């Protein structure tokens, strides 16, 4: 069954083509599209799970299927499925664009699946571009055209700038080593990391991944794009597309970074700047999506801590944190999507009285935010604990201290949101929020998952350690 090697990719590609076909045929029917997307992504999860143990290097070593990539493909499929779950009525995207929306979301996931398997700089570049282009269009699809288009253009301009830098970095690397294959680079760069040009190439190549990860200094698009895109698209950006960024940066740094003390310094600066900027800017935000956007920037900083350890335990903690971020961010956005019933942006004050209007959503919001703030026994706490332990093993004491101070700052603004949901009284009459039974089940399950994975992380950590075991 060699077909299973590329099972998830081929399947997602076909699904995306299907939606493209529906879109070409006209006759929009969003109910049917949503049901189809739900079934397709559900089967996709099963397929990705069954392809977990595949292992091969394909297409003259540019494409690598190993446990690391398969784990991330599974996470991506789960993320896609979860996002589709909340896309029942994407109010902010026109009826006639709904099938495009699904097609693009599947294409984007496909691109990210290719990205996590990329074993060649050009594969990485191409799949990164494919996923970014899908996202540019998705962001611009918003019904309120001015917001969507503005956000899309901003996203696009920053994005192409980052990818230009990335291409330049790749060219430098190629010039120095005459290869673009990651395995070959790993060997060729051995002992060359001290050379300024090599380092320049590596750092510039990283810029594309940092853009994906919303990390300093490529974070400037985040608040505006999060605010400008439709809520569901923002959820996808925040929860799912970050996964691919983490996977790509892990594979790249693991391949080329060994012995790069200077590279660690660069990542360290980016990490500190990212979390400090993100957290301080988030304090004054009033728009919940903007706030979560800045919190994403801060989390990119925490992720970099795990990456810059250049150790297996650090990489494993990043993989675990990827899972944690997926669940936490998705839960927070689930609440955003459901509370902003008509698809508009959500002001923090609009959460007032949420605990009475919908206790389930309020609880989900509280647990997810506490998890993001690293309060035990949630998965966010365990993830941060693992990352910090890995960093301390490498002696990054000051870095961990700064990170913990940042976690404290973040608690402050998460508490502002929780206070609004639990302690503020709404102005004027607001009725209860109609939450369907499946949504309630989903929210409860997510809360359960966050607490369970926080209390019992071992099985996930085991998988994560096995996954990073295949990295060089």
């Amino acid at each position: 069954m060699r077909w299973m090697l590329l099972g998830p990719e081929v399947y997602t590609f076909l699904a995306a083509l299907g939606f493209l076909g529906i879109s070409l045929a006209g006759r929009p029917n969003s109910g049917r599209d949503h049901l189809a997307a739900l079934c397709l992504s559900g089967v996709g999860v099963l397929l990705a799970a069954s392809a977990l143990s595949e292992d091969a290097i394909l297409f003259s070593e540019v494409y690598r299927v190993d446990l690391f990539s398969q784990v991330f493909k599974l996470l991506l499929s789960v993320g896609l499925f979860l996002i589709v779950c909340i896309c029942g009525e994407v109010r902010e995207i026109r009826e006639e664009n709904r099938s495009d929306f699904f097609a693009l979301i599947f294409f984007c996931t496909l691109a990210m699946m290719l990205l996590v398997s990329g074993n060649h700089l050009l594969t990485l570049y191409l799949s990164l571009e494919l996923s970014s282009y899908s996202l540019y269009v998705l962001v611009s699809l918003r019904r309120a055209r001015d917001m969507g288009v503005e956000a899309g253009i901003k996203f696009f301009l920053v994005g192409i700038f980052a990818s230009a830098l990335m291409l330049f970095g790749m060219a430098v690397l190629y010039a120095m080593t005459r290869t673009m294959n990651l395995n070959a680079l790993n060997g060729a760069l051995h002992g060359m990391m001290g050379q300024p040009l090599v380092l320049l190439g590596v750092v510039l190549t990283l810029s594309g991944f940092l853009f994906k990860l919303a990390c300093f200094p490529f974070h400037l698009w985040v608040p505006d794009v999060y605010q400008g895109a439709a809520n569901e698209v923002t959820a996808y950006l925040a929860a799912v597309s970050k996964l691919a960024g983490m996977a790509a940066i892990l594979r790249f740094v693991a391949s080329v970074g060994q012995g790069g003390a200077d590279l660690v310094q660069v990542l360290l600066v980016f990490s500190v700047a990212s979390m400090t900027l993100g957290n301080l800017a988030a304090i004054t935000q009033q728009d919940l999506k903007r706030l979560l956007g800045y919190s994403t920037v801060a989390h990119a900083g925490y992720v970099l801590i795990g990456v810059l350890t250049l150790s297996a335990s650090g990489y494993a903690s990043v993989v675990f944190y990827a899972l944690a971020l997926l669940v936490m961010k998705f839960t927070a956005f689930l609440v955003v999507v459901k509370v902003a019933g008509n698809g508009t942006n959500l002001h923090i004050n609009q959460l007032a009285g949420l605990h009475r209007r919908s206790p389930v959503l309020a609880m989900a919001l509280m647990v997810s935010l506490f998890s993001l703030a690293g309060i035990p026994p949630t998965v966010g706490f365990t993830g941060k604990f693992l990352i910090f332990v890995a960093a301390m093993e490498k002696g990054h004491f000051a870095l961990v201290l700064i990170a913990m101070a940042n976690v404290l700052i973040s608690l402050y603004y998460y508490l502002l949101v929780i206070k609004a949901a639990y302690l503020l009284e709404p102005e004027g009459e607001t009725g209860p929020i109609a939450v369907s039974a499946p949504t309630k089940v989903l929210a409860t399950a997510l809360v359960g998952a966050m607490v369970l994975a926080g209390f019992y992380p071992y099985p996930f950590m085991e998988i994560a350690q096995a996954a990073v075991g295949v990295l060089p």
Partner: protein
Amino acid sequence: MMSLLKDPVLLAAALGTSLPFLSMAVILVFTRQNQRLSATISVGSVSVSLLSSLYLLITLYGAGAPVQYEFPWLLADDIVIPFGYLLDPLSLLMLTIVAVISFLVQVYSIGYMSGDPGFSRYYAFQSLFAWAMMSMVIAPSMLQLFIFWELVGLASYLLIGFYYEKWSASQAGKKAFVMTRLGDIGFFLGLIILVLGFGDLSIVRMNEAGQGHQIPQYLITISALLIFGGVMGKSAQFPLLTWLPDAMEGPTPVSALLHSATMVAAGVYMFSRIFPFYSMSPEAMALALAIGTVTMLLSSTMAMATYDLKQVWAYSTVSQLGFMVMGLAAGGYFAGVFHLTTHAGFKALLFLCSGIFIHEYHTNDFRIIGQQGGRKLMIPMVCMTVGALALSGIFPFSGFFSKEAILGVLANHPNKLWLGAGLVGALMTAYYTFRLIFFMLFPRGVAAAHGVHDAKGSGHGHDDHEGEHHGYIFWTMAVPVMILAGISVVLGFSQSSLESFLMGHGSVPAQLAASGGEGHAAAHDGHGIGHYALLIGAVTMALGGIFWAFMEFGRKGATQEGFLRAFPVVERLFAARWYMDAFLRAFLDKVIYSGLTNVFTRNDRRVIDGGIDGICFFTVAGGRLLSFLQSGMLQYNLLVMIVAVGFVVLYFLLA
């Protein structure tokens, strides 16, 4: 499951600590609407906890070696941390304290909170607290302790902000949470260092290895100092002490349970938990002693300048916690834990009595309560006086014995400065305590009619309970108060049996004794002439404080102004908490808000402000897009990227 049934001790430990969690879940999910049922479930589960903790205490009284149940909790292949239960004299004692006070406070709350719209929610949070606190107390590893330590903080946040219509309450809750977390940064870092340096967070093994010099000295000192950060946050030690007085915005039973008797004592408890480990670092002990002393003196002065009933007790809690830390840091393991025990009793008593007055008169100002005839409420007035006598350290009340024990330890310390500070603290404690009592007992200008309620500072929103003084609501509050008063009278006499229990074979200090620790010497050295001199000195201080207060506030014709009135600057300094809050506020406003955050968000504002000027839709749309492109935002954004990357490049080319 079978092993659970075969082993009654394990069953009791598991049942006692996890039932409150179940009760919280049940209340939140099913019985929110039914207030009476919610209260029954919560009180029922906490009574089971109480019974099982008493059972454990009796069964394991002479057990010798600590009973430990450990289940490995795997974080990753190389990080294994035990979870489960550690039952030794210290944890059993603390478990019993927590269970008793939780039980009494929950019973009391039936009356105090009756009619509140959030009644069920209140009991759910109470159950959450009971679960987290008890699981923390019997934690066998520092990480489990830390996890439940944070959950206790969460319960505290929820309970302080319980009156959500009060802006100040939710602010106070946030402040408490964030400030204690600030201390927890140190705690957490200390734990990580220990994991990496020693590889084990089991409390028993940590203590043994610390005593056995198996951990390098520098590692002990660093981690002990960092872990002390957690104590500073949770037990409100200087400079993280201002959250505790603010936390009094919550319901009064919450203040009694969390913010005086149990939760804030968690810091001191954690300190005594790893006392053998900690005492191996003289540097850390010296720092703790200094911090404890500063805290005790500072907060005593603050208590002399406030007229808010609960604030006085809050400051006195902070100062007594500082006193406990002093006792522990001077090497007096038993003295510190003993004072923790007696303090839990009499401070809960004082708060619950105050709660009855606040419930009755709808004000926190004890001058007004006195004027409106507070002394007519005989039961709480008598009980409160009992608590005040215990707090001041008057024989035969419990506070006398435990204060005496700590002063004895301080007297054995080579540096007599600490003893002097302790005695001054005792004087101030007696003074501010009886200042309050005399204001209430001998009010001036009893003109105000009983019915005129000053709503200022009143915590809760129901008014119709006139004439129910002897209804069930009054008795649910009065009975717990009387029980606590009884405990405060007799607890002191159990000193020797408690001492033999805590210091017994297999317990923490038994190991200390083997290594000739200072604390052991202190505990047994106090029976000479010096001891009696100290005894007389301490009692003189306490009586002197009471007499002083009597001269200023109690006797006929007293001005009731206090000596502080003569020094307005000092009074303002005390009332403003030595400007610690003002300093913090200014720092937040100036540096964080208007400084850093402002810079980072200017980017946002420029985009938004630049775009809203248009009139019709298309103008706005086009205008925003153009303004974005033309106002330099794009250039600005790209410039940031180029500059950042450029710096990196420069760094490498030049380096």
